[in-house]
């Protein structure tokens, strides 16, 4: 053949370190997708993709945050390796997301280590165990016993900043993201649209309810959707439990502990069971899934995060069941330490995905208007 071919140079995703490198690769892969469009029916990412003819960084980030890593597009793709086009959209977008979150949530260094390794989680947990073990021994802090041994005020004192500071950081990050993708003033209808999509995990439906291709290769399955639903609703119930307990405490002037047939307990036990089951299932499914279709550098931290949520919920349940026994205060210390670590991790770990995705879904609703 006399004429030169277009050079197709493919670098493994793991070697694309900078934003610019990843952006170039994203333009290449999404350009191929856009001239094919066979995957249009799978999820919101592909529906959005057809609006564009080129892919600047803002568009790539928007598409990446819409992607739920369901992998339907990968297994249906004619152009995956060994084809020279070497498409791997789920992995590409997972890598873009990870970089994107790091870029927006400050401090970036904390985001980098918490998305990348186990040790910050371990370190925080140990530190908090030490902290709570100390607190429990200080008489004036353990007055007005909450559960076995820590006062409500001490908990408020410790957890308020642990809750507020990461949330402020996350909110700033989401705000930065929103600006970067060109988001306009949010309407209630955008939020409603996004919430409905998230509530049903529409983007894990595979487009026709057949599910995704996560743990069993080419076969469709809804396991991950169910596991995620259990995790998400379990988590929300736990959150509701704490919220109602706060209302009981301050509004109804009724401090903990509460009987089983009370809202905080029902939400807490139900949520805890759902959350731990969901996390266990997510963990199992992850072990069955192909690492090469996610962000390889983030896989460990993703496991750690699922593990953290699992232990937060199980220690909560253990604490409830060990009430009145000698183990109660030990479980309390561990549980509180894990919860505190979790709070810190919210903006810097996989937990951020919920907020970024919701923002992306809101933006998508705007763009579809």
């Amino acid at each position, binding site marked *: 053949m006399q004429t030169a071919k277009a050079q197709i140079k493919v670098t493994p995703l793991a070697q694309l370190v900078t934003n610019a490198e990843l952006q170039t690769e994203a333009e290449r892969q999404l350009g*191929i997708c856009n001239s094919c469009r066979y995957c249009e029916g799978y999820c919101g990412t592909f529906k959005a993709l057809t609006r564009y003819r080129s892919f600047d960084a803002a568009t790539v980030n928007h598409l990446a945050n819409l992607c739920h890593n369901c992998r339907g597009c990968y297994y249906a793709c004619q152009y995956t390796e060994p084809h020279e086009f070497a498409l791997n959209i789920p992995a590409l977008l997972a890598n873009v997301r990870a970089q994107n979150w790091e870029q927006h949530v400050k401090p970036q260094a904390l985001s980098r280590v918490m998305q990348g390794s186990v040790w910050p989680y371990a370190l925080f947990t140990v530190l908090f165990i030490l902290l709570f073990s100390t607190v429990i021994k200080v008489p004036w802090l353990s007055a007005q016993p909450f559960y076995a041994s820590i006062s409500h005020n001490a908990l408020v004192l410790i957890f308020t900043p642990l809750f507020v500071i990461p949330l402020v950081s996350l909110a700033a990050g989401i705000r930065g993201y929103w600006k970067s993708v060109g988001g306009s003033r949010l309407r209630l209808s955008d939020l409603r649209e996004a919430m409905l999509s998230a509530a049903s995990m529409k983007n894990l439906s595979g487009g026709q309810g057949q599910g995704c291709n996560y743990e069993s290769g080419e076969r469709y399955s809804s396991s991950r959707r169910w596991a995620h639903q259990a995790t998400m609703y379990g988590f929300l119930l736990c959150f509701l439990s704490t919220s109602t307990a706060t209302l009981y405490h301050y509004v109804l002037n009724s401090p903990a502990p509460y009987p089983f047939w009370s809202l905080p307990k029902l939400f807490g036990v139900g949520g805890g069971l759902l959350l731990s089951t969901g996390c266990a299932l997510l963990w199992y499914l992850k072990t069955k899934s192909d690492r090469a279709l996610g962000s390889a550098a983030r896989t460990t931290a993703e496991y750690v995060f699922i593990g953290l949520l699992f232990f937060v919920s199980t220690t909560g349940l253990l604490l409830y069941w060990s009430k009145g026994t000698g183990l109660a205060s030990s479980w309390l210390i561990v549980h509180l330490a894990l919860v505190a670590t979790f709070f810190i991790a919210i903006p810097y770990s996989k937990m951020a995905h919920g907020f970024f995705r919701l923002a992306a879904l809101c933006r998508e609703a705007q763009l579809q208007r």
Partner: protein
Amino acid sequence: MTAPVIELQPDLNVMTPGIGPPVADVIVIGAGNAALCAAITAAEQGAKVTLLERAPRSYRGGNSRHTRNFRCSHDSDLGVLSGAYQLDEFYDDLLRVTKGNTDEKLAKLVISSAPESYQWMTKQGVIFQPSLSGTLSLSRTNAFFLGGGKALVNAYFQRCEDLNIDIIYNATVLDLHIDNGDCDGVLVDIEGSQRYLRATSFVVAAGGFESNKEWLAEAWGEAAKNFLIRGTPYNRGEVLRQVLAHGADSIGDPSQCHAVAIDGRAPEYDGGIVTRLDCVPFAVVLNKHGERFYDEGEDVWPKRYAIWGRLVAAQPEQIAYAIIDDKSSELFMPSVFPATCCDSLSDLIVEMGLPLKETMATIEAFNNACSEGEFHPTELDGLSTEGITPAKTNWARAIITPPFRGYMLRPGVTFTYLGINVDETARVTFNGNRSKNVWAAGEIMAGNILGEGYLAGFGMTIGTVFGRIAGQQAALHANS
């Protein structure tokens, strides 16, 4: 995927007819849509089936990997298809594209069996979706596969696994032992070792010869070297040639292939859908000497689509260049490779390697021949040039608005027409007599029905209907 597929030599000593136990009731050669439908149908009838796939697992499914829809008749709403697409209309569409070069009985069999096949496909796990964006013209006639052809093939392979069909990848059939239309077994190379596999019934569904450039060169001469093959490099036509050599009756023009004009920078094989380039109607198209050679605005898709491959193939070095200006840059589906783009026309011409003086002269003459008028990109708008040959009879607008963009075009071969003759039970005929135990389905026999031309999604209909018939007949023979 550009690695050439090696031609293997059969060791005929391994082939000893009548010796050795059969490996299965039915051997299916090929693993595209038709082969999979045949294998599944035979297995559903209780036959033990072995499926021979020449490609490795990652490239399984033949050219069905690249397909995206199934043309289907329907009297009323059917799944994702709304309204009606009656048998007569379907048949008329077929007559129009083939210019009557079809077997009426077989064609009507395919057309009338399509809706039932649609239901059957759904039961096998194939998921349909409404037509994709940019394909509205097909929404009534064609049911699209969710995720495209590879997702369809995946669904069928899963079904094969569930039915305990023995799938052998990297299995190249080197010869069939056929005596007077009676097949005893097949000589197969499986990852380097040759084996002789026997069975009661045989289904050949191994596609055409479009990726065999030596064979294409028999009809096209040297020009074939410059053809790009849109699909799998594994469709070498070996099984077709073997069966013909054993006396099967051939059908279809051996010198014809269906070719479209695609992006000249596409890979030599397997570029698939993304290499299509539908900018021709909005462009001036030049050969390497900077000359126009055909009316770019003659007709709408799909007729235009069907002729440009051949037109480019007839030009020197089988290459052409399409040049558009900024007015037209977003009027067609995005191309996989970015256009060469320059603010000045002369820069673009130089960058594309065209002769500057001649090309400028051609484009100036073209521009001067354009006149004012209403431009409608989606219909024949009659906006024609005056006083140049060849004329551009629709969508003729002067190429004057920078930036200018250029694409290189080459012929992209999609499929070949040569096939083997079958009857309405998919049974192959040898020297005019029905074979005892050989059936055919898919591209290898599609020439019976689609003698020339192209009808979107119809190859999948032929493959599905005849695949199912072949599978059923092969199992029936094995069970009796």
